[in-house]
């Protein structure tokens, strides 16, 4: 192999002639096909830019290991008992933090100009958004699975068994779907991808910590306990914990699904509107 590289050839006109002359144009993709193509794009990004997923899953992984072994004995009496308590909380945290990237990705698209191309294509207008969110569901699934598998490796064996865990995972992903619309809206309103990330994490950190994800709220001062109890993330963690432990609460699950539906109902159309408007 020679190290000397020939400069790439100037594209000769006859070649262009050949590619331009090929086959008549097919009909543009339908709504479903276009959405799936955009979802495929989202999956390729997980493969090409795994850092985004690692960023958000590494923190929960560290938390699981540190909290379980450092504080587990002190908070719950034993590391095993505490693991059973916090794993649904960490699962929630990992997946919800991943939703911020839905907004970051959309903001990046807008600033890079690739959205202009998408919007000038003769395809179903919401397809890029619908596809991105579909691709994000896979991202949520990966982030959640990492936490669950780590927990199982550390000895997490909840009462609900495999189905309980899967149900908890599914519920967390459903909530994440609703929450991701909030961040896609933020992604279209804020200037830079970094701003979206900062706003997202600044909102999610207190929300996750002022919840029952890591500690029982009984020990908190009354006013704080009231806040924790009202926090939708507390409801999500309680519901996920119930499912995983084989002791599900229908009312908690209903609250979580209602919040997810409400977030979707408000922020999905808002995202769609902002996206159509462009910059």
């Amino acid at each position, binding site marked *: 192999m020679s190290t000397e590289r020939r400069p790439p050839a100037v*594209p000769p006109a006859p070649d262009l002639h050949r*590619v331009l002359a090929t086959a008549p144009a097919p009909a543009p993709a339908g709504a479903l096909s276009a959405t799936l193509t955009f979802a495929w794009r989202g999956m*390729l990004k997980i493969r090409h830019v795994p850092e985004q997923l690692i960023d958000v899953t590494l923190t929960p992984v560290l938390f699981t290991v540190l909290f379980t072994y450092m504080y587990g004995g002190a908070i719950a009496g034993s590391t095993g008992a505490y693991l059973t308590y916090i794993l649904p909380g960490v699962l929630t945290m990992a997946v919800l933090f991943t939703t911020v990237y839905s907004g970051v990705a959309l903001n990046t698209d807008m600033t890079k100009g690739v959205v202009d191309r998408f919007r000038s294509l003769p395809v179903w207008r919401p397809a890029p958004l619908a596809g991105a969110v579909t691709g994000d569901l896979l991202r949520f699934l990966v982030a959640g699975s990492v936490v669950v598998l780590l927990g199982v490796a550390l000895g997490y064996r909840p009462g609900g068994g495999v189905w309980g865990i899967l149900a908890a995972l599914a519920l967390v992903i459903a909530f994440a779907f609703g929450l991701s619309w909030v961040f896609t809206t933020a992604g279209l309103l804020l200037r830079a991808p970094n701003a979206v990330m900062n706003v997202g994490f600044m909102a999610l950190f207190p929300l996750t910590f002022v919840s029952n994800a890591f500690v029982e709220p009984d020990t908190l001062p009354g006013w704080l306990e009231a806040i924790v109890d009202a926090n939708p993330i507390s409801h999500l963690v309680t519901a996920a914990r119930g499912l995983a432990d084989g002791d599900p609460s229908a009312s908690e699950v209903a609250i979580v699904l209602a919040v997810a539906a409400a977030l979707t109902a408000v922020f999905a159309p808002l995202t769609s509107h902002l996206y159509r408007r462009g910059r």
Partner: protein
Amino acid sequence: MTDRITQDLTAARAALAPLAIEATGLVKSFGATRAVDGVDLAVPAGSVYGVLGPNGAGKTTTIRMLATLLRPDAGSARILGHDVVREADRVRGLISLTGQLASVDEDLTGRENLVMIARLLGHPWRAARARADALLEAFGLTEAAGRLTKAYSGGMRRRLDIAASLVVTPPLMFLDEPTTGLDPRSRSQVWDIVRALAAEGTTILLCTQYLEEADQLAEGIAVIDHGRVIAEGTPAQLKASVGSSTLHVRLLDPARRGDAERILGGRLAEVRPGADPAALSATCPDGDRAALAVAELAGAGIGVGEFSLGQPSLDEVFLALTGHVAEPEEDEAALSGGGRA
């Protein structure tokens, strides 16, 4: 019913005057700024049409309205007979856009970018991959096909961008500053591509702030400044409209320069002896008068060794039309992110 009639009328009108782009009184404001302030354009099908103007003149906003990305505040535009607002979907099927920022996905490989567009435009997977490979080869990108486009040079990115616009060959293509930030070699590659496309019959609307680029590629040019079309014509007409061409004459015998100066002075203004003792130059309003003046020299027996009529550059045209010089530097700095090597 009414829609049907409107459509038929529109189609009939388009058949009479085959215009690829027909814009009247386009206006778009952002806050208090009128980015586009009543732009009219009539671009015949099958031509390369240049929209020339400095940074911030309203070129990109105009293109974005024509490509259905922005809704005009006032005025209307038709693309091959279809209204950009009422028939936006129809229009999107007729155009492709190569934006000012390279519109490729940086986190995907070159090949994945093209496969994605091909899928969206209706190619089945296998055909999409074949189409992507054919385009990559034609644009000299086969070797880089599997690399993420964020690692591409500015020139490669531009070529991929144009390739993405040609997955399905569109009747009308928008090229927004296709060579801003490119090195001279990449620039000439892009020019070759534009010429090849034009030769195949694709209509191209080329926005540029490079006067030379418009001169090289475009058959018609609209000069835009402050959101308005301030002049329109062929490059030659625009240059002629400035009027002051310069006639350069070199005599066979330097001793006759005094006579020559007197003869030319009778017909032309500002006759100046050159540094070369046999050379003279003069300002003249048009080619006819220059020809007569040279003929008169010959008629008087003064041997003319060589002569030439220098046309004003488009830079001079711009200066004459707007009263200020076109300044591309600002924009290049702002776009350095899109054109880094």
